C-alpha cells in the first residue's frame, strides 16, 4: 500500500492505524498532531482510524512559542 507522509512516498504492507504509523515512524505521540487528507484526526481517534491506500498524511508538532 502506497501513502504519502509529509509529501514523501511511503510503502506500507498492512492497513495500520494512525497510532501504529506514528510508532512505526518513531514519532513521539505527545505533542504531535496528525492530518489525513487535510483533516485533523484528533487524538482520541488515533487507535481506530485506519490508513487507506493513497492517503496523504501530515505529521507536525504543537508549537507554543510566541
Amino acid at each position, binding site marked *: 500500500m502506497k501513502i504519502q507522509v509529509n509529501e514523501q512516498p511511503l510503502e506500507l504492507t498492512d492497513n495500520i492505524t494512525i497510532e501504529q504509523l506514528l510508532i512505526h515512524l518513531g514519532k513521539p505521540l505527545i505533542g504531535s498532531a496528525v492530518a489525513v487528507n487535510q483533516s485533523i484526526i484528533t487524538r482520541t481517534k488515533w487507535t481506530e482510524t485506519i490508513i487507506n491506500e493513497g492517503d496523504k498524511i501530515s505529521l507536525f508538532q504543537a*508549537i507554543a*512559542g*510566541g
Partner: protein
Amino acid sequence: MLSDAELLRYSRHLLLEEVGQSGQEALKKASVLIIGMGGLGSPAALYLASAGIGHIVLSDFDSIEVSNLQRQITYQSDDIGDAKVEVTKRKLQQINPEIKVRSINKSMGAEQLTMELTMADLVLDCTDNMESRQLINKACVDTKTPLIVGAAIRLEGQLMFFDHREENSACYHCLFPDSEEQTLNCSNSGIIGPVVGTIGTLQALETIKHFVGLPSGIKNKLKIFDGKTLDWQTFNINKDANCAVCGKG
C-alpha cells in the same frame, strides 16, 4: 457615532465598503483581551490600537529583556527592565489616544481569567507556553468567548480561530491535547522576527474582520506557515466529541 477626529484618523478604513462607518463603530465598541506581549502580541496590539479597537486589555507578567528586542517590535533599548504591559500601554495610547487600554501586569489564574473573559468580546492567545494555552482555551470554551490562537517557532507559524459562541466549534484541546511542556518555544528553539510577526499581524487582521462582520476563512482550521518557502498549509479541525474540554470528555 464617530467624532470628526475619528473620521479623519480612520479615513482609510472608511473608504472600504468592507469596513465603512458601521464597521468602524463596531471596532470602537469592541473589547479585546491580548494575552502575552511578546513577538505575537507586539504587532497584534500595535495594529489593533491603530485600527481603533475601543477597549484593549493587555496581559503579561514579564519585563523587557535585551533578547526580546530582536522581534518584539513594541520595545526599544531604553525600555529594558520595564514591564511589557506598561510600555505597550504607553505606546498604544501614543499611537491612538481615542481608545482605552488597560494592563494586567501578572500571570492570571483561571478565576481572574474567567472574570476578564466575561468583559471581553474576543481573546488573542499570544502566549509562549502550553500550560497558558490550555488554560486560556478552557476559559474561552467555558465562557463561549471567540479565541484566535497564534504560535511560532524557528521559521514556522501556526494560526487558528475557534469561535466558541458556535455550538459545534472545535477547540485548541481537540487539536493539541497535551499539557506537558514538551513543546518547542522561542527560548529553546529560536525564532526569526518576521515569522512570529506575520502570525501576530494575521491575528490582528482576523480580529478586525470579526468585528466589522467579514467572514473568517480560518474558523475550525489550522493554518501552518512555512517561513522558508512562504507556503501555507490548511487543515480542517472537527470538534472531537470526546474532547476533555469542549466535548463529553
